[in-house]
């Protein structure tokens, strides 16, 4: 057998939205991780059938009162999912889960990175971006940080209060600039009709090419494809664009 799998204790669970939940895991031996990394979670059925899925870490090292040997995942339930329904509706505090990781050295932000960062998330794709925003705030980093967050409805956004606090109502000096796009239903009085993120709204909301930002884009494959294509068309360098797709195939076995 390979040895990368560890047993984690579920030490906290709280709803994020109607169909998403944040789980805090204590992983014996965990000594650190990078904002943007993920863990693989493995479930084993009584008949031995195993399913493995990848979930992005939402917490940041040393932030939010999460202990050094703990991390948090936010999981959205997929209607026909094999793993997410259990993580969102089944597993309870005191239960255990098999995990592998944290892993991944590419879609990560390090507190020593000083350049402008543009985060772009679609739906639950905000999770690893939240880890970066939390790490950025916890480090007191001077790197300019923006988040463009596309959600279906006001109620489907994750971390709303915490994001509002980080963005400080748009105040100068706030650690984060936050822009929402509502695709199905906008809040009352919102200046734009709900609809998909479009090319012009994207280029208006992100750092211009002259600022040489690094992009982290996470969402469904069509979302990531459209956004990254528009950014390249707008003059951003492809090697500054880092992407993490999620979607129907359900992650990495």
């Amino acid at each position, binding site marked *: *057998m390979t040895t*990368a799998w560890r047993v984690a204790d579920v030490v906290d669970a709280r709803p994020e939205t109607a169909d998403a939940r944040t789980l805090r895991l204590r992983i014996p031996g965990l000594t650190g991780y*990078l904002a943007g990394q*993920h863990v693989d979670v493995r479930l084993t059925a009584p008949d031995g059938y195993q399913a493995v899925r990848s979930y992005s870490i939402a917490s940041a090292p040393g932030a939010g009162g999460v202990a050094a040997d703990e991390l948090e995942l936010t999981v959205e339930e997929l209607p026909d999912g094999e793993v997410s329904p259990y993580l969102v509706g089944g597993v309870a505090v005191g239960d255990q889960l098999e995990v*592998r*990781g944290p*892993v991944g050295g*590419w879609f990560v932000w390090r507190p020593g990175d000083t350049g402008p960062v543009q985060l772009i998330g679609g739906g639950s794709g905000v999770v690893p971006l939240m880890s970066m925003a939390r790490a950025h705030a916890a480090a007191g980093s001077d790197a300019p940080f923006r988040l463009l967050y596309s959600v279906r409805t006001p109620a489907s956004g994750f971390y709303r209060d915490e994001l509002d606090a980080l963005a400080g109502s748009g105040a100068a000096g706030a650690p984060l600039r936050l822009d929402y796009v509502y695709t199905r239903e906008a809040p009352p009085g919102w200046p734009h009709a709900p609809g998909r993120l479009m090319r012009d709204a994207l280029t208006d909301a992100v750092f211009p090419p002259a600022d040489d930002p690094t992009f982290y884009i996470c969402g469904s494959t069509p979302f990531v494809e459209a956004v990254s294509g528009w950014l390249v068309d707008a003059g951003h360098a492809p090697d500054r664009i880092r992407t993490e797709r999620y*979607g129907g195939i359900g992650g990495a*076995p």
Partner: protein
Amino acid sequence: MTDQAPHIDHSDQSYLDGNAAAGLLAEVFAVDATTARGRCASCGDESVLARAHVHPVAGGGLVLCCAVCEGMLARATEAAGRVRIDLRGMVWLELDADGDDDGDDAV
């Protein structure tokens, strides 16, 4: 387990980024392989594996395909506690010997 290349439908958009292979590749490589650079044996493109397209393999495992030509770069399958890696789709793979990118040495 056979050495047949799995059928992949490139007409759909159901792939993930190479990032998603980090956990499975961590079973084999001592340092993060998704930040390793490889040269595609089909078209010669040189890129980090994190930029490859990942497709699942029925029965457990992943195929990494070149983001430029969709040629198969690598296949990793996992079954009955064994991991098999097929790397013939790359001319070479260059890993960070210092392991600075594996995350275990994070702050």
